[in-house]
């Protein structure tokens, strides 16, 4: 094997020593240099990307925490406004009830059959499925 390498090296030197072969040698060196540079640049790129990922990882926690805090603050604002709105609705309902109770004719009777039919209808809805009077209505009569 070493003898083969020595023979090959000698042949290559003799081949390279011929001036007409120098352009081929130059072209080969240029190609090798380009390959070397590409490999180095890609390797550096990988290193830089790994470092970049570490930096992003460190910044990510802060960015996510900031966004989380912002979302929580926004949600608290919505909930607070919603609670105020609910309270206003209840106050409005109470005011309406007072008006109704003092309006002449409020105690006008409603036919029992109408009341019963209306109740049976309302009891069909899921909202009143567990209402005691609806449960009573659904009980089979003995």
């Amino acid at each position: 094997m070493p003898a083969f390498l020595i023979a090959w090296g000698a042949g290559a030197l003799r081949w390279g020593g011929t001036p007409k072969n120098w352009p081929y040698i130059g072209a080969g060196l240029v190609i090798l240099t380009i390959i070397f540079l590409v490999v180095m640049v890609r390797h550096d790129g990988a290193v830089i990307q790994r470092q970049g990922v570490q930096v992003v990882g460190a910044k990510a926690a802060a960015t996510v925490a900031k966004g989380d805090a912002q979302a929580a603050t926004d949600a608290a604002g919505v909930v607070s406004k919603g609670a105020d709105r609910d309270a206003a609705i209840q106050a409005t309902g109470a005011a309406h009830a007072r008006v109704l109770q003092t309006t002449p004719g409020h105690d006008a009777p409603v036919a029992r059959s109408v009341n019963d039919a209306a109740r049976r209808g309302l009891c069909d809805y899921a909202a009143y499925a567990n209402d005691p009077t609806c449960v009573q209505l659904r009980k089979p009569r003995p």
Partner: protein
Amino acid sequence: MPPTPTIQPAFNCASLVPDRLKAPVAGAPLPPADADAGQVWGFADAQTGRLDMANGHTSDVVDIVTKCEAAKAEAQTALKPKRKWWWPF
């Protein structure tokens, strides 16, 4: 070189919705069996108030999640790796 995996920011928008808004709004109490006109209309008024409440709760939930999603999108944009203009790879 394998692409860097994108890790979603740890946002949980649903957790920002309070239980009060998740619970159904109960209907107004039914009027008595011998309800008079005032009680029947009082029931209708109260039921309409409950409807307003329920619609408000739906709107609040949508608002909370929309704002949370916006914050999430903003964070994702901030976390997106930026390509340098001079870097060829």
